[in-house]
C-alpha cells in the first residue's frame, strides 16, 4: 500500500521521496481504482501510455530524486487535446477525434513529470452544470450516486473526490471548475483569464474559457498552477505576466461579503459560508459588506456572450476536415446540416441557436452589444469593490448536489434556464476575468458545500494563501465520500 486512497499530491511526493512507493505502483493502483469505479468519470483510460511513462518517471526518480510533479498520477478533462489519445469533448461530433498535437497545459504537466491516466467525462463541449449532457452518459457524484457531480468538469471533480486521481485538469467558462468542485467536496481554481494557455483546449467561449486545476487541497492547487501557467506564444490571448509568486497570503486582509449574493441561497448553505467568514475573522482578517449592483444581470449577459462565441467557435464542425460526417449526403448543405445535427446534442444546439439569434441582424445591438456593456458594468462592480476590500467571499452554488434528472429531462422538456441559474454565483467572476476558487466549507445533509473566494486580476497568490490558511484551521477538505 502506498500513500492512501485520498492522499494529496504533497503526501504522494513524500511517499515517492521516501521510496515507500514507486510511480509505477501508484499508476497501477489508481488505474485499478478507475477500472473498479462505477462513477463513469472517465471517457478514455490510457493505461499502456501511463505505465510506460510511470516506469520512465521511476528511472528519473532513481537518478535525481522526486521533484515537481514527477510520478504524480493525474487526469485531463477531455477538452484538452492529447496527441495520439482521442479527445472527444464528450460529443458524438468528436467521438473518434485523435488530435495531432498536445494542448500546452498537457505538454507542461508532462514536462513536470505528471503521469496522465486518462481523459475525464464532461458536459458536451463544456456546456452544462450537471454532466448530464455527455455523449458518454452522466457522471455520478461520489457522495451519492443518485446525484450529479456538477459540470461541466464533472468527471474531473468526481474522479478527484473519489480518490481515483489526486488531481485533474478542468476548464471554467462560467463556473465549470468551481461548481463541480463545490458539489463534490474538493478544491478547484479558475485562474485569471489568460493566466493559463488556451492552446489545444477545444474552444467554447474564447473570451471566457480558462483552464485550471482541481485537487484535494489549496496547497496542491498552487503546485499544479505553478506547472500549468505561463505566457504561451501559441495563444494570442495568453497574458504576458510573470509566474504566481509564493507569498504568505497576508494578514489583516479585508474580506468583502457581497450583499447581492444572499438571494436564492439555501439558508443552510448561507450558514456554512457565514461560519467560514467567522474562521477568517478568527485568523485576524476583517469582514466587510460590499455591493456588486449588476449581479442580477450577470447570468443573462453571460448566456448571450458565451452562446454567441460558441455559435462562432462551433461553426468549424462541418463534417469535412474532422469530426462526425453524415452518411450519403445529397449535397454540400445536406452534409453540413446533417453532420452537425447528428453530431451535436440538445444543449449544444440550444446554445448555437441562442448565439446565432444574439448575433443576427436586428438583434445584435439589443443582445450581443447590450451583454458586452453589462459585462463591463459587472467587471466595474468588482473593481470598485476591490478599492475597499482585498478579496471577496461568496457561496459557490445555490444548493448542494441535486438529483440526476431534477433539472434536465431525457426528453428535453424541462426549462433549460433553471439549470443556467446554477451558475448564478460563478458567472460574475467569469465575465470579469477574475481568479476565483472553490474549497469545501461545510456539509449539509451528507453532501459537501463549497465557498468561493474571488481576487483581483492576477491575485492568485493571495487567493491561494487565504484558502491554505482556511484549510489549516478546518478539516472540511479532508472529509471523504462514504465508501
Amino acid at each position, binding site marked *: 500500500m502506498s500513500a492512501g486512497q485520498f492522499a494529496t499530491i504533497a503526501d504522494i511526493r513524500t511517499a515517492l521521496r521516501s521510496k515507500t512507493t514507486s510511480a509505477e505502483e501508484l499508476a497501477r493502483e489508481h488505474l485499478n481504482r478507475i477500472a473498479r469505479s462505477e462513477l463513469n468519470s472517465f471517457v478514455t483510460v490510457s493505461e499502456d501510455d501511463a505505465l510506460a511513462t510511470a516506469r520512465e518517471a521511476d528511472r528519473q526518480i532513481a537518478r535525481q530524486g522526486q521533484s515537481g510533479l514527477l510520478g504524480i498520477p493525474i487526469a485531463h478533462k477531455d477538452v484538452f487535446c492529447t496527441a495520439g489519445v482521442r479527445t472527444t469533448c464528450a460529443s458524438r461530433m468528436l467521438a473518434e*477525434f*485523435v*488530435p*495531432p498535437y498536445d494542448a500546452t497545459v498537457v505538454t507542461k504537466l508532462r514536462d513536470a513529470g505528471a503521469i496522465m491516466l486518462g481523459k475525464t467525462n464532461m458536459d458536451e463541449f463544456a456546456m452544462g452544470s450537471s454532466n448530464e449532457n455527455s455523449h458518454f452518459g452522466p457522471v455520478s457524484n461520489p457522495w451519492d450516486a443518485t446525484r450529479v457531480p456538477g459540470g461541466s468538469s464533472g468527471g474531473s471533480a468526481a474522479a478527484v473526490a473519489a480518490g481515483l486521481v489526486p488531481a485533474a485538469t478542468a476548464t471554467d467558462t462560467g463556473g465549470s471548475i468551481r461548481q463541480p468542485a463545490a458539489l463534490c467536496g474538493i478544491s478547484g481554481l479558475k485562474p*485569471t*483569464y*489568460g493566466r493559463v494557455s488556451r492552446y489545444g483546449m477545444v474552444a467554447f467561449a474564447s*473570451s471566457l474559457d480558462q483552464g485550471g486545476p482541481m485537487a484535494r487541497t489549496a496547497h496542491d492547487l498552487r503546485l499544479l498552477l505553478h506547472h500549468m501557467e505561463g505566457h504561451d*506564444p501559441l495563444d*494570442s490571448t495568453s*497574458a*504576458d505576466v510573470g509566474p504566481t509568486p509564493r507569498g504568505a497570503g497576508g494578514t489583516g486582509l479585508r474580506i468583502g461579503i457581497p450583499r447581492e449574493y444572499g438571494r436564492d441561497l439555501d439558508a443552510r448553505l448561507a450558514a456554512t459560508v457565514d461560519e467560514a467568514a467567522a474562521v477568517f475573522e478568527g485568523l485576524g482578517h476583517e469582514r466587510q459588506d460590499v455591493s456588486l449592483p*449588476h449581479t442580477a*444581470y450577470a447570468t*443573462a449577459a453571460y*448566456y*448571450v456572450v458565451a452562446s454567441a462565441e460558441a455559435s462562432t467557435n462551433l*461553426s468549424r464542425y462541418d*463534417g*469535412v*476536415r*474532422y*469530426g462526425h*460526417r453524415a452518411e450519403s*449526403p*445529397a*449535397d*454540400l*448543405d*445536406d*452534409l453540413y*446540416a*446533417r453532420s*452537425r*445535427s447528428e453530431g451535436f446534442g*440538445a444543449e449544444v444546439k*440550444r446554445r*448555437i*441557436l*441562442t448565439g*446565432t*439569434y444574439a448575433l*443576427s441582424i436586428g438583434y445584435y445591438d439589443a*443582445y450581443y*452589444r447590450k*451583454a*458586452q*456593456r*453589462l*459585462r*463591463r*458594468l459587472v467587471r466595474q462592480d468588482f473593481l470598485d469593490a476591490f478599492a475597499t476590500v482585498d478579496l471577496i467571499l461568496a457561496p459557490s452554488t445555490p444548493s448542494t448536489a441535486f438529483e440526476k434528472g431534477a433539472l434536465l429531462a431525457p*426528453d428535453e*422538456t424541462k*426549462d*433549460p*434556464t433553471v439549470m*443556467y441559474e446554477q451558475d448564478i454565483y460563478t458567472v460574475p467572476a467569469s*465575465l470579469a476575468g477574475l481568479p476565483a476558487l472553490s474549497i469545501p466549507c461545510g456539509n449539509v445533509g451528507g453532501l459537501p458545500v463549497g465557498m468561493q473566494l474571488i481576487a483581483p*486580476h492576477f491575485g492568485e497568490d493571495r487567493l491561494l494563501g487565504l484558502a491554505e490558511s482556511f484549510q489549516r484551521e478546518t478539516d472540511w477538505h479532508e472529509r471523504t465520500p462514504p465508501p
Partner: protein
Amino acid sequence: MDADLIDKLMHLAALRLEARERELLKDNLLKIVQLIDTMQSADTEGVEPLDHPLDGVQSLRPDRVTETVDRDRFQQDAPEVRDGLYLVPRVVE
C-alpha cells in the same frame, strides 16, 4: 419566436431538426429569450462594450516560420480524403 425565425436561425447555424425536436427547441428558446431579455431593464447608456476581460490587446509573434503543416497527419482525422484533398459532395455539375 415564430416558425420563420426558427427556420432562419437553423439555416444560419447549418442545423436541421425533426419536427418534434424543433417544437421542443422552440419552447426552450422562448425560455432562454425570456431570461436574456431581463438585460433590457439595465441602464447601459454610454457604457463601452467589453470584448476582452482584461482589455488586452492580442500580442503578435515575430513573423517567422516556426512550424509546417503536416497534411498527411492532419488528414488522418478527416472523414474522406483522396490524393491529399478533402472530399465533399459535388458542387459543380
